[in-house]
């Protein structure tokens, strides 16, 4: 994804437009302020006598040349070498003598200025020895007390130390003097203050802002390598802040040659930052540039040093063209790439790049053609403003991306929590299932063991014992065991199925023993209930015991079994016409007939087993089981 296209809300789309309007307004104000006409009370001094000062000798005014102001020490003119020069201007006595204080305003004197009026020192701009004070861009104002003025024949001497064009990297800093304005001090001061704001104060403010924001963005980009374009843009801003410092930094600890070299080389650094920013912002990381651009940063000062201070302007000029071409190529590449990726940044970026490029072009043209310096003032502020705007935009995008990342992280966290809960639930279910499986397997194993070991032994006893009683006991034990196993492994049994099983067993056993059996049970539709395997097994035992008793002891010829469902109870009535169960002396029924165990089993199922018997009238066994209790038990 294009790193510069984080998801964005629609409303802040107005933000860059607003900022653009704000800048436009600012620039208009600047232009208006600068364009305010000078007042009629002032006078312009634009003719001067010029001599070059020879060290240790008084100025030779006889050999002075008359020059028009503004005057620059360009090549191709007689005074084109670095030197200390004196301009002598004739100051006409002002007509408005009522004023006690006058002002002398020098818009540009490059690089350092000293002013004498009628031989009196009235202004000292700074050091004339290396490192020379750099006041090229600073408008200077000096107070001229009326007392210092003669009635006529006032002479102004402007002493300037400056450098030849060949020794500086920009035409802005070639030695020279602009026209000089003279008038009432308050008018001059207002004039000076206005200029000072645009020439010095605003560049200072811009430098500070760019430095602060650039450092901030650099650190931000440094720690988020994915957004490395932020770091390069930060570097670009810092570089531009240093470049702007040339406008206001007057007293540097190094001499002109080093300063000019550093300024020229700064352009290589700015180019590196700008090209890399555009590439990274377009989502590209060309490997070649990683080495080529820093190498260029080293190569440029090296060539400047080798060429020597005398060819600084020419060599740096060649370099500037080269660097400008690189930045232009990168800008074109970026715009092409943004267009290809249908980036939302295409038009804002194209506008910004266009404005910055135009401003630089205007600034350069104004210098080369010596247009009004006010154009230059405005033009040199535009790129800085543009960079600040773009910086804010990038930070905004970064913040937006950070916000959305935070949001998706929060969403992810919620999803992880949900997934964890789900896993835990699944695990719990799985464990339960596992327990059930293990239990089931264990039951099956016990059942198999019972059959294989106990079953086989009992079976052997059944068929090898000589005693019929032991055989019978063993057979019963085997049946018991089988029922126990069924209770152990069993699933719930449908009552209708259980009735079928019981009927088959009871009827066939009675028939085999010659007892006439009669079975009655509710029809299929009436018995939807199920029995737990325990209830099934216990009822089977009770029934089996009862039938055994009838076959063995009662001597009955008829037996009826009735199954009924009443009030949620299951009732089983087994009735025979035998001789009944003999009553013991204490009134209790014979335990040998297993009545006690039948009652015990019924009790286990929360039911009851009643036995009614009287000698000669047969026996009735009533078994009642609550169905609800046992329908669902496993």
């Amino acid at each position, binding site marked *: 994804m294009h790193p510069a296209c984080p998801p964005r809300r629609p409303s802040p789309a107005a933000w860059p437009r607003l900022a653009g309007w704000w800048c436009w307004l600012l620039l208009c104000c600047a232009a208006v302020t600068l364009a305010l006409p000078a007042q009629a009370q002032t006078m312009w001094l634009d003719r001067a006598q010029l001599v070059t000062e020879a060290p240790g000798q008084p100025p030779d005014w006889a050999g002075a040349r008359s020059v028009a102001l503004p005057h620059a020490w360009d090549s191709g003119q007689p005074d084109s070498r670095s030197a200390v020069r004196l301009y002598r201007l004739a100051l006409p006595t002002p007509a408005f003598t009522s004023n006690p204080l006058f002002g002398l305003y020098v818009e540009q004197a490059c690089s350092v200025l000293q002013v004498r009026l009628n031989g009196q020192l009235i202004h000292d701009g700074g050091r004339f020895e290396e490192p020379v004070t750099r006041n090229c861009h600073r408008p200077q104002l000096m107070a001229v007390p009326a007392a210092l003025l003669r009635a006529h024949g006032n002479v102004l001497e402007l002493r300037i130390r400056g450098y030849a064009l060949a020794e500086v990297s920009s035409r802005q800093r070639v030695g020279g003097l602009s026209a000089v304005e003279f008038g009432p001090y308050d008018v001059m001061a207002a004039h000076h203050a206005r200029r000072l704001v645009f020439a010095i104060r605003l560049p200072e403010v811009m430098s500070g802002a760019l430095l602060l924001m650039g450092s901030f963005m650099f650190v931000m980009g440094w720690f988020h390598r994915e957004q490395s374009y932020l770091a390069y843009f930060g570097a670009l801003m810092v570089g531009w802040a240093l470049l702007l410092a040339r406008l206001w930094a007057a007293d540097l600890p190094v001499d002109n040659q080093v300063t000019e070299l550093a300024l020229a080389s700064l352009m290589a650094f700015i180019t590196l930052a700008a090209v890399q920013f555009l590439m990274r912002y377009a989502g590209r990381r060309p490997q070649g540039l990683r080495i080529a651009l820093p190498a260029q940063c080293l190569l440029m000062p090296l060539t400047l040093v080798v060429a020597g201070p005398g060819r600084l302007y020419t060599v740096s000029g060649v370099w500037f063209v080269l660097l400008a071409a690189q930045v232009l190529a990168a800008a074109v590449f970026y715009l092409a790439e943004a267009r290809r990726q249908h980036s939302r940044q295409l038009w804002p970026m194209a506008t910004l790049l266009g404005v910055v490029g135009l401003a630089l072009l205007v600034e350069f043209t104004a210098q080369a053609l010596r247009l009004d310096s006010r154009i230059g003032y405005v033009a040199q502020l535009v790129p800085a403003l543009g960079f600040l705007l773009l910086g804010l935009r990038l930070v905004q995008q970064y913040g937006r991306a950070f916000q959305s990342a935070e949001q998706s992280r929060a969403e992810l966290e919620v999803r992880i929590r949900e997934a964890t809960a789900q896993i835990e639930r699944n695990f719990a279910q799985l464990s339960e299932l596992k327990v059930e499986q293990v239990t089931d397997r264990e039951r099956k194993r016990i059942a198999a063991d019972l059959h294989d070991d106990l079953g086989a032994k009992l079976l052997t006893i059944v068929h090898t014992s000589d005693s019929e009683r032991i055989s019978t006991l063993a057979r019963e034990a085997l049946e018991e065991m089988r029922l126990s196993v069924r209770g152990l492994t069993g699933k719930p049994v449908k009552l209708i199925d259980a009735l079928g*099983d019981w009927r088959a067993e009871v*009827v066939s056993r009675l*028939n085999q023993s010659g007892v006439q059996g009669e079975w009655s049970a509710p029809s299929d539709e009436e018995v939807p209930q199920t029995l737990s395997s325990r209830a099934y097994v216990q009822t089977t035992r009770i029934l089996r015991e009862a039938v055994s008793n009838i076959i063995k002891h009662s001597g009955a010829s008829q037996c009826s079994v009735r199954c009924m469902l009443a009030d949620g109870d299951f009732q089983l009535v087994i009735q025979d016409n035998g001789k009944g169960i003999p009553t013991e002396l204490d009134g209790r029924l014979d335990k040998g007939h297993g009545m006690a165990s039948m009652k015990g089993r019924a009790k286990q199922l929360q039911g009851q087993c009643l036995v009614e018997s009287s000698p000669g009238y047969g026996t009735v066994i009533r078994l009642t089981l609550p169905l609800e209790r046992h329908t669902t038990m496993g």
Partner: protein
Amino acid sequence: MNNILLLEDLPEIRAWLKSLVLQVFPTARIIECSRVQDALLQVQSVRFDLALCDLGLPDGSGTDVVAKLRDVQPEAQSVVVTIHDDDEHLFPALQAGAYGYILKEQSRELITEQLQRISQGEPPLSPSIARKVIKYFASMAKPQANAMPEVSLTDRESEVLLRVAKGFTLPEIGVQLGLSRHTIADYVKQIYRKLNVSSRAEAALEAQRLGLFRR
């Protein structure tokens, strides 16, 4: 009865069963085996009329012998002799081709009678087995109705099965349906046969399906 296979691992029970079988079929030659592998070898070489197979044996299940016998000697009658009375154990053996089962712990007289009945073509059928058979054919009926029309149950057979499941004895069902004891026994035999045929067809289909999937 000429050759009878007796597959039983407990020596005492085997001896007891042998004497019992000899009582029913005095002239028969009884080949005793205590392991599935021995029995399978015997099935390859000897022609049997009747086979009594235990289910739980040290080296496997008697069901394998029943199935083998059904494949190699379809006319031989297999009877399961077991300690298990639950359909979980019995049903696979019946599907493999057994014609009924005898519970080992029953008295000598009862087993003798059952053996005679089986050899005369009257295999026993318990309610729980009948229910299982009903369920089995009901589940078969849906997907493979077209594939195997010959192995679905007739109405009469279903009627008999339903009555057995409710606990009626075979003679009782004969009376209820106005059929002779012999006819009812024939139905039961048919049910056993169809159970076997159906499960073999099912197995073949299953194998074919797996084969298709493997390819």
